[in-house]
């Protein structure tokens, strides 16, 4: 028996080696259609990848032992943030054509802008002594046309009112405009600065009141997804007041200052407005 083992087994081994040499156990070579498929295509996946413990077990026979399971849902894309109402940052300067789809709504200062800024490409809806409460007819006229942008300056004629009362009226006006101009970017323009002399000698037209109104307007603009245009930033001097040499009553100003206002609008607009 022992002699049989020692004789048969070596013979079988020799036969196997011979057959192996004749038919080859070669690794796959590039471009060789007769090559055996890659070993990994037939490797059974039996373990969960440690880096993703929540990943379900792979299906046996899946292609790559380290690739995610094809049953996993792709990760949700990061949501794009919406516009950062209400504050505007400085943008590249725009020309008059940018304002061709714009309406300017407001009081005597908007009328001054119409007469002296040099901007004729937009439509104006304005009148001396105009207030939020009295703007209904102007808004109705404006609504005959759909605009891409609506700029509003109202408030200096109401600066003696309680701020909350004023904001309540302004809030309702914005709703009315939004309903009639659903596609428009709305720009709430803040009150313009007054002169130092006016602020010091008057009990109503003071920078404290201008600032209080403007803080409330800015907050309202944010709530209502409108933009806020800081006209004090545009028109005040380094002391924070309307310069004395451009005004006689401390509130209204001469032609050159309207050009500064226009220049500010050219560079402060909604980022997605272009």
């Amino acid at each position: 028996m022992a002699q049989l083992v020692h004789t048969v087994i070596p013979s079988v081994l020799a036969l196997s080696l011979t057959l192996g040499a004749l038919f080859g156990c070669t690794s796959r070579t590039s471009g060789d259609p007769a090559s055996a498929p890659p070993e990994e295509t037939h490797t059974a996946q039996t373990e969960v990848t440690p880096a993703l413990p929540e990943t379900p077990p792979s299906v046996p026979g899946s292609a790559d032992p380290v690739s995610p399971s094809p049953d996993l849902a792709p990760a949700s894309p990061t949501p794009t943030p919406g516009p950062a109402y209400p504050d505007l940052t400085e943008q590249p300067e725009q020309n008059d054509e940018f304002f061709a789809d714009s309406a300017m709504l407001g009081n005597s200062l908007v009328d001054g802008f119409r007469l002296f800024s040099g901007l004729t490409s937009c439509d104006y809806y304005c009148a001396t002594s105009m207030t939020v409460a009295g703007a209904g007819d102007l808004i109705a006229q404006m609504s005959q046309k759909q605009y891409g942008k609506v700029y509003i300056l109202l408030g200096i004629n109401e600066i003696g009112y309680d701020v909350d009362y004023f904001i309540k009226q302004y809030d309702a006006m914005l709703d009315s405009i939004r309903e009639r101009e659903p596609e428009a970017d709305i720009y709430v323009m803040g009150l313009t600065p007054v002169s130092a002399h006016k602020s010091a000698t008057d009990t109503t037209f003071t920078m404290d009141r201008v600032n209080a109104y403007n803080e409330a307007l800015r907050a309202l603009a944010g709530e209502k997804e409108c933009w806020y245009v800081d006209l004090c930033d545009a028109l005040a001097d380094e002391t924070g007041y309307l310069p004395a040499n451009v005004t006689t009553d401390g509130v209204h100003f001469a032609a050159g200052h309207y050009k500064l206002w226009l220049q500010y609008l050219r560079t402060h607009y909604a980022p997605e407005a272009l």
Partner: protein
Amino acid sequence: MKKTAPLLLFLLMTCLLCAGCGAAPDFEPAELAEKLEGSGCFTDLLSEMDQSMALELYGLSESDVVQCAVYLGTGATAEEIAVFKAASASAAKTVAEALTARRDSQIAAYKNYVPAEVPKLESAIVKSSGAYAVYVTSADADGAAKIVSDYMK
């Protein structure tokens, strides 16, 4: 000889009378406007307006106006200077009507806005002579009127 002298006298008197009437005005609107603007008759800062905007402000057409010079106040007052050279004497009357309408519109606007400006508007100069029409609202109506009369009889 006795008949000739009275005739000559008559002709001389007629010529003198015609000279006293004055020729039709003929001046650059800017000249009168600048003289008014620098006269001290105004309390507001006056800014010059370009012609196309002025035509729009007063509702006038280019065909009626050859040239104009317009200055507006800041809005704190109703002070204003508007001097027009029209295309004809007839066009000057059209311009004068537009200037009268402007004055009336300003009275309505300032009545509740800055009532102190209404007396200035009520004593505003609205005048036409030949092909010229002028509108001036100032703090010194008499002073402004004298300057205007030097240009427009």
